[in-house]
């Protein structure tokens, strides 16, 4: 089978992958999953405890797969997916008592000292108190290890916005950590 350069490019784009996934191409959807699971998890982790975020991560992709045919603009897959994730996180947060979240965070780490685990939980909680734009961007960068350009590409934000969110978010986070310590 001969594939033109243009077709190959389209296949690599979100829109092409969405079209292919709609046609039943599991590999295309797996590619979308690989491309977006970190940002989706970051969005969830900005609100939910880590185990809950992992469960919700799977739910979000199941929902996306089920509803993929109703997505009007395949090129807007990233934004659509993140909105699903935010809705899911908001739903779960309403149902989960806030006290439980900290306990789960502290027990999530395995091979670290309890002091480090407490420090990490405190830092993540401080991030969760930030405005949504800063919170999600910082989790993507500091927890999921994505770079600024990757964050911009996945979320649809401009690189300038991502850079500003990172710097302002970090500034606010340091202030919060200093106050709490």
């Amino acid at each position, binding site marked *: 089978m001969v594939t033109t350069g243009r077709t190959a490019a389209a296949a690599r784009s979100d829109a092409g992958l969405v079209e292919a996934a709609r046609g039943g191409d599991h590999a295309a959807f797996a590619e979308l999953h690989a491309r977006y699971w970190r940002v989706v998890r970051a969005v969830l982790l900005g609100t939910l405890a880590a185990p809950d975020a992992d469960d919700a991560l799977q739910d979000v*992709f199941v929902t996306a797969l089920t509803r993929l045919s*109703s997505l009007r603009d395949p090129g807007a897959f990233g934004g659509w997916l993140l*909105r699903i994730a935010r809705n899911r996180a908001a*739903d779960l947060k309403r149902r989960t008592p806030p006290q439980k979240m900290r306990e789960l965070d502290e027990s999530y780490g395995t091979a*670290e000292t309890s002091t*480090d685990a407490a420090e990490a939980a405190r*830092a993540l909680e401080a991030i969760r108190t930030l405005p949504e734009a800063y919170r999600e961007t910082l989790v993507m960068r*500091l*927890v999921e290890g994505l770079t*600024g350009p990757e964050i911009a590409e996945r979320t649809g934000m401009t690189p300038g916005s991502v850079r500003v969110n990172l710097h302002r978010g970090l500034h606010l986070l340091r202030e919060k950590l200093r106050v709490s310590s």
Partner: protein
Amino acid sequence: MTDYLWDGKGRPDERIAELEALLSRFRRPAPPAAPRPSSVSGKRPAARPAPEGYEIGWGWYVAAAALLAIFAIGAAVRFFEARRAREWTIVDARGSKKLVRGESIRTAPGKTARLESAAVGVVELAENTTLTLLEVRDGRTSLDLSAGTIHARTTSPPGVFVVQTPRGRAIDLGCEYTLRVEPGRGGRVHVDSGWVELSRVGQQSLVPAAASAVFDATGRLTPPWFDDAQAEFGEAVRRFALPPEVPIDAVARVRALDRILTLARRRDGLTLIGPDPGSPARRPHPHRAPGGAGRDAGGAPPDPRPPERPRASAARRHEGARRRRRDVRPGRVVAARPGGGGRSAAPEEEDRRGSSRGLLSGLAPAT
């Protein structure tokens, strides 16, 4: 310039690196497996559907359908309530019954009845009264009073409640009034409050509160006169507007007019010149028959001739009429003279020209 926070390149910022190391514990060690279509087929999604702007889910269709259903139910309730409000119910000694369109009600001697409508008001029927419901629709309820007496108290907007009689119709302008029809003899309307428009083709009499107007068997109307006017004044008005003789006795009419002018008070200007002298309705249409209440007592047919240009004699008549109207005030009486040259036209001639409601309004020239 390198920025470690931006792209992770360059010399690491210690505090950022420390945070990264601390928070990396929350990083997932291995990527999760992507869900497969076969594993989700028929499975209800756990997450909420995507927001508006991206897709329209079933929830929106259900919400839209519910909204439409609410609107439809509301409209139906409103429609049926409005229809029920327009219904007429007969209430008498035996109970109540709905009066449908085209149905008549007749009261026996010594018996009365009552008609009620939530949208219009109450109509009480005296004995020996025959009333038919002609029309019931939004904005118009029409009854036919062929004989007898009714007393109506309305709450509907002006012009909604109309009672047809064999010789004209009474249009309620928001009021309480009594209407009597005597077959073969005419009838009378007396208004207790508000106004009633008594009209037939080409004629109109606006009757205010505490006033009456009558019509004869041929449908001729009188202008209204007040209850507190002298009885002789009312008789003279009736005699002038509805002369019983055929052919018309011009001398008797002028004599009646003389009595009218003698007995008229300032308040009776309504009878003489109509309730609204400036109204265009009082002005004669050049191609239409003269039609003022009382002034058109002869029931003249429409005049097909185009209006004449004012001539010198007409101008003199106009001047005379103007002077006479000025003179109609308390303490001053001016008697109209039959065949009075340029000052006053004969009543028959005035009949052809008159078009307004008041007795004297026909003295003004056609404009």
